């Protein structure tokens, strides 16, 4: 093996779906044959030019890629340090990065002859993206969404219904993303013959973490070229918010072997990363365990029972994190930090006021970390932050948090 492969951070996962000790295939026997079939299909598609031609055609004409890399001039001036670029994935059709991945999985599902698509969703962005692509291809779509999230992301629930999807509110557990994923897995075990499970993040059993990463890596590939064009060099720091970790992995992956590039993932700190566990910072506040088909860092108690996280952002409200992030954390290639609800709300408002961009609450977490570090950095330090979603879905939540009465204007 040549040295450059030995030293690469981009060769994972291994044939067992492991990134170091993380990942794997921890699923019931009923699902195993299907997961192996999916892996074979994906391995085939990866090197199949017609597959990628179809992806690029849809990315260009349906999603609106490439998304711009935008120099946030007023934000940069306001913070007075590093030069800040935003990767504008919030401009994608359906308003977030989620559709990058959904297209890939739905094309695979069609190749496998599956006629029914199921998905879990937290913020509703993955559900909307899945419902959208299913409408486009005439596939039946069922979306599992925690009952609590159905409430706080009401606009997205209606969107999914308009798009013809069936939205099933999940009441088990505390009714958030983890519980939606449990029920999606239960549906899949029951309807394994005709159903494809379209997972919305870089989690789940192998090959999902790798496959979703590869579909999202278009973000980082574009950003790298765009930064070359704008500044003639690589960025110094790249930053993204982490729920399960798909928008972050998508931005990070093409930069993993550019070891001069600092990589920072931002977890949801909720009310603060403390012993009360009112947060979703799996890497900062959790330890390794096995859930939803993979080994990764999890919020759990001493008995290995999974804890419900807490975050103002429904899209970050997940007690785990993709296994590749767990590995990048352990080997130290990426750094993981946390941002509280209040800090994210402040960043949300700053983006609106200075850049005319209403961000989703998820990337507001990433922006809040940019606000922390940019002032201390030199003016020629280049930052790319993934603006992975727009905030339309969050205006009610933010209004409530800021004490606005909707309709009282």
């Amino acid at each position: 093996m040549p040295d450059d492969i030995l030293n690469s951070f981009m060769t994972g996962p291994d044939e067992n779906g492991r990134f170091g000790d993380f990942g794997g295939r921890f699923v019931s026997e009923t699902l195993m044959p299907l997961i192996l079939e999916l892996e074979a299909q994906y391995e085939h598609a990866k090197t199949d030019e017609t597959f990628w031609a179809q992806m690029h055609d849809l990315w260009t004409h349906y999603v609106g890629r490439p998304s711009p890399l935008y120099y946030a001039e007023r934000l940069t001036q306001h913070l007075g340090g590093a030069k800040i670029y935003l990767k504008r994935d919030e401009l994608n059709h359906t308003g977030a990065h989620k559709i990058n991945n959904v297209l890939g999985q739905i094309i695979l599902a069609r190749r496998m002859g599956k006629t029914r698509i199921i998905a879990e969703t937290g913020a509703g962005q993955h559900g909307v993206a899945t419902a959208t692509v299913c409408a486009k291809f005439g596939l039946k779509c069922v979306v599992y969404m925690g009952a609590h999230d159905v409430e706080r992301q009401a606009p997205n629930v209606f969107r999914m219904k308009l798009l013809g999807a069936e939205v099933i509110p999940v009441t088990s557990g505390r009714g958030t993303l983890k519980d939606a994923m449990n029920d999606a897995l239960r549906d899949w075990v029951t309807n394994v013959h005709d159903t494809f499970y379209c997972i919305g993040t870089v989690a789940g059993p192998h090959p999902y973490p790798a496959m979703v990463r590869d579909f999202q890596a278009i973000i980082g590939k574009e950003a790298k070229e765009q930064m070359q064009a704008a500044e003639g060099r690589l960025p110094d720091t790249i930053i993204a918010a982490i729920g399960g970790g798909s928008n972050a992995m998508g931005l990070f992956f093409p930069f993993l072997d550019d070891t001069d590039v600092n990589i920072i993932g931002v977890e949801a700190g909720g009310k603060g990363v403390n012993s009360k566990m009112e947060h979703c910072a799996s890497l900062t506040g959790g330890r390794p365990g096995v859930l939803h088909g993979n080994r990764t860092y999890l919020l759990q108690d001493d008995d290995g029972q999974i804890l419900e996280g807490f975050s103002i952002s429904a899209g970050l409200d997940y007690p785990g994190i993709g296994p590749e992030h767990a590995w990048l954390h352990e080997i130290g290639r990426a750094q993981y930090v946390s941002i509280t609800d209040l800090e994210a709300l402040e960043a949300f408002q700053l983006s609106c006021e200075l850049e005319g961009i209403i961000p989703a609450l998820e990337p507001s977490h990433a922006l809040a970390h940019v606000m922390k570090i940019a002032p201390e950095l030199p003016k020629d330090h280049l930052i790319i932050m993934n603006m992975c979603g727009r905030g339309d879905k969050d205006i009610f939540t933010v209004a409530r948090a800021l004490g606005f009465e909707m309709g009282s204007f």
Partner: protein
Amino acid sequence: MTRIDAKFAELHTAGKKAFVAYVMAGDPNYNTSLEIVRGLPAAGVDIIELGIPFTDPMADGPTIQLAGQRALEAGQTLEKTLQIAREFRKTDDATPIVLMGYYNPIYSRGVDRFLKDAVAAGIDGLIIVDLPPEEDSELCIPAKAAGINFIRLATPTTDDKRLPKVLQNTSGFVYYVSITGITGAAAAQAVDVAPEVARIKSKTDLPVIVGFGVRTPDTAQEIAAVADGTVVGSAIVERIANGDSPVDVLAFVKSLADGAHRA
């Protein structure tokens, strides 16, 4: 020879099918659960399947999900589940106990420590739903080395090509899941199950026990007739959820055991 092997040898000599009962450890609380578990052998139960409560039981329907929640809310832990086995063993050293659940509580305790404690508590077998053969090095191989049977689930999606892999490190018995689905859902049909059991038996000498979707004494009889025995879980757990007394729960268990033993 483990207690499981001895039990099947005994049933074989008597010309009887096995009746396996599933209850969730600590449901609705530790004391009631221990009382029910202690009464199972007298109610005709040949093998006890003791559920390990877990917050995220991905292969279980609402009945067993709620049982796990009740147990956890009442303070059940993996340690207390082992404690139920230890207490049970004080008066019964013959009835096999199989722990059934998910990997994380075991992984969290540490596999080596768990196996040592399980052996000491008199646990005979493990059914861990989210450990397929692809993950055998995690727990299956170490359990075998510790003298604990690792009982694998075979399902309707386990085709002939995959079956040898599923059977390879399985010991004690094979658990055939009669439906594609979660516990407590569809009803098992003897006509569907019989050829599947035959298919598995053509590849292994281990007993084949059928579970998922068996709820009544009649179904227990029909399913046991085409296999080496049958498992009932959700239907028993529902009685516990209803607040039935241990005496009533055990009377229901006896009716199921009688059904299976008529086969």
